[in-house]
């Protein structure tokens, strides 16, 4: 069932995910509130000549505003009102499209003669905005939204199966969802037991396996599914090291059970190096005879470790998270690096190559909707999953990042 090379190609899966997940980001359906507001206005004015003015005080797009104005006019006309200029109107109606934290707030102020104006209010839950993509430079980072939820997302794994599945790791549980009839259905969910409180800035990683479905790594906890396709998980307290890249490149790092970083102890090590300074993330760059590892240290330094030498780079623009990808573009190996933004702009991810030891940017930064909380290479090694917390909605959003060859 969960054959990674199943009959659904990644392309089809991506399209499915894209078509499902981008659905809510399309222009919204305002028919219910339009109808409600038109009815409320009509109930006050009755049939007759009215003027209608619409003012936008919200973040709605011009297309939405134009659509709302047009539909509202049609609804009022259909209800027997004649829309005229203010000087010919028995009642003037000013509709304000406003908003608060959770809702769009549409307010009709209806003035009839010298009476106190009547106020009618309709509120509409806010919809989530879409996220724009940027144009590429040399290589293009494509992002496809995989999942979105209010609780933090630590990692997401996509299972290329029929039907497609996603596994979502959050601080409380590991949940598997299946795409059925265009809707994600929760199939299984397992609580993650932990006797100690989770550390802040909690991190976790999912790794799909060949002989069983998935392993999940959390600080001080390891969960593994039983052999077979189902998500039968068993979890235990463990200080086993976490895989630092994909299955193709084997290096594991010990993760602090009470902090948010790798301690620096490695298994089996990079050449002769068994320990390195504590770090947040690591990315391998395969060379002909060795693997160059790039590590983001907790001291803000970026280190390149080849098994013999440790070289320190100063990259103040780099954040703490990196993920390596194997692609058919450029040198065939890129490292996706999060930005160390000043907080004035949403975090970004940019692809770099390492022709020698000096990183060279090979893509434009791709913008996430807020701050990045996680970036891991997917089990295939060719893509990465990034999680960010959307500034506008406060929700956590997981995206698959794929590198496409540019012009």
């Amino acid at each position: 069932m969960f054959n990674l090379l199943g009959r659904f190609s990644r392309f089809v899966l991506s399209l499915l995910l894209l078509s499902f997940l981008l659905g809510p980001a399309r222009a919204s359906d305002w028919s219910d509130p339009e109808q409600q507001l038109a009815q409320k206005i009509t109930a006050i004015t009755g049939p007759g000549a009215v003027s209608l003015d619409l003012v936008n005080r919200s973040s709605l797009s011009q297309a939405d505003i134009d659509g709302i104005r047009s539909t509202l006019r049609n609804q009022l006309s259909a209800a027997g009102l004649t829309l005229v200029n203010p000087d010919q109107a028995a009642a003037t109606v000013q509709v304000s499209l406003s908003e608060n934290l959770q809702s769009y707030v549409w307010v009709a102020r209806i003035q009839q003669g010298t009476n106190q104006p009547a106020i009618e209010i309709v509120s509409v839950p806010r919809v989530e905005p879409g996220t724009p993509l940027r144009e590429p430079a040399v290589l293009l980072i494509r992002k496809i939204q995989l999942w979105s939820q209010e609780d933090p997302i630590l990692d997401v794994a996509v299972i290329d199966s029929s039907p497609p599945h996603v596994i979502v790791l959050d601080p409380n549980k590991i949940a598997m969802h299946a795409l059925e009839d265009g809707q994600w259905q929760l199939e299984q969910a397992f609580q993650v037991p932990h006797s100690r409180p989770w550390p802040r800035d909690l991190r976790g990683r999912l790794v799909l396996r060949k002989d069983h479905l998935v392993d999940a790594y959390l600080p001080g906890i390891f969960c593994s599914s039983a052999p077979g396709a189902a998500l039968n998980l068993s979890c235990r307290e463990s200080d086993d090291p976490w895989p630092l890249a994909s299955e193709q490149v084997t290096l594991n790092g010990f993760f602090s059970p009470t902090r948010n970083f790798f301690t620096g102890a490695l298994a089996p090590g990079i050449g002769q190096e068994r320990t390195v300074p504590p770090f947040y993330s690591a990315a391998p760059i395969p060379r002909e005879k060795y693997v160059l590892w790039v590590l983001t240290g907790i001291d803000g330094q970026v280190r390149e470790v080849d098994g013999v030498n440790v070289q320190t780079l100063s990259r103040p623009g780099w954040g703490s998270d990196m993920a390596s990808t194997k692609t058919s573009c450029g040198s065939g190996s890129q490292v996706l690096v999060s930005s160390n933004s000043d907080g004035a702009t949403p975090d970004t991810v940019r692809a770099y190559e390492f022709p020698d030891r000096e990183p060279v940017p090979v893509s434009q930064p791709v913008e996430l909707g807020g701050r990045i909380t996680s970036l891991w290479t997917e089990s295939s090694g060719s893509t990465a999953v990034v999680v960010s917390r959307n500034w506008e909605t406060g929700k956590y959003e997981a995206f698959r990042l794929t590198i496409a060859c540019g012009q």
Partner: protein
Amino acid sequence: MRHFDLRLLAASSLVLVGLAHAARRPQYGGTLHVAIASTPSSLDPAALGQLDAVTCRNLSSLLFDTLVTMDDFGRIRPALALNWQAHPGNQRWQFRLRPGVAFDDGSLLTPGAVAASLRAGNPNWTIYALDDSIAIELNSPDPSLAAELTLPKNSIVKRLPGKVSGTGPFRVSDWQPAKKLVVAASEDYWGGRPFVNSVEITLGTSARDQMMLRELGKTDLIEIAPEQARRTAMEGRRVSESAALELVALVFTHQQPSPEDQKLLDALALSVDRAAIKNVLLQGGGDPAGGILPNWITGYEFLFSTEFNMVAAQQRRAEVPYAPAWTLSCDPADSLSRLIAERLALKAKDAGMTIRPISTGIGDLRLVRTSLVSVNPRVALTQVTAALGLPPPGLSGDNLEELYKSESALLESHRIIPLFHLPVNYGLSPAVKNWGEKRTGAWDLGEVWLGTEKP
């Protein structure tokens, strides 16, 4: 009316101040130094309520938790309660407690302890301690009870003789009433150990001394008055700014304004030149307010007038043959309030009224400043009216139309004239990371970490 865009609001509260968490992961360790003006004499949230609402909440949140919290989008989140349920009618609520949480004296959080804590601040509630949960029964339906439980006064406190104990992210390591508070990270905090090792708060520090300490690199976090915020930012200093959530208003202290009083108060409201006060006294900060609650919380505040119309003010004044001289009181220690009061008196004179600012006692009018600590409009309106001694809004549901009518009725009662909504500002050292400014100006010092940047 200024065009309002929540995305801009999010930007102002989370982004433009340059304080949001960047993609550099947090580091552990260090002491965060804070200087504030307040001088609390007790750490009990019930006593902290005597301070301004923002300071009360911020100090309380270091040591105590509430059953639930509210995020920046007004959504209720689990805290000491893992989940909750309102029975049909919203008159009985049940909250299941998070297991394994301990007070800082080592005793476990139990339903009995939670019930005892909540009973102390809410004598009208009937609270039952059940196996792993508590149930709250109310005299009348309250759809916003969960939002109300996020208020600091509903912090879960274990009160012992001469001592209060909490379950918060920090524990008291040095407490000198009204002078100094030092708290240390709680290693076993259920929400994760804070990144900093400790927070040292110097209390009773004047605004000038706070600024000096910041200049000398002796403190990481200070308060900045709204009228100072823009200038401070323009000087290249790091300033965080919340959404506009502090209400500045005139409150008429007579319980029942007579018809003549109402006409004079109408005239007074029309004589207030909010734009000029904003530009001159507030140095461009804050938003003119027509409503008690700001537009970003309700979405309808723009319906309430902020019009400055001296001709209309004079006409309204002329409808009353004899206008008594009113006194206007304000906090004498608050220079901004004093300046605004003087400005209001000047304009009232142009309208034909005599308003005399006084520095002691309670006047016929009071210039008040009160902060909203909830972004839930129902809770916020109830809290503000209680703080200002106004009649409770009498809400039974939580729909926006009812809220609008209730707020309209309060304004039409002529007991209050809203003037401005101001943001809460803090000055931060460059070393402060992951500040994550909240719209409500709330601190989340458990999430803050210290970088190596020099002041």
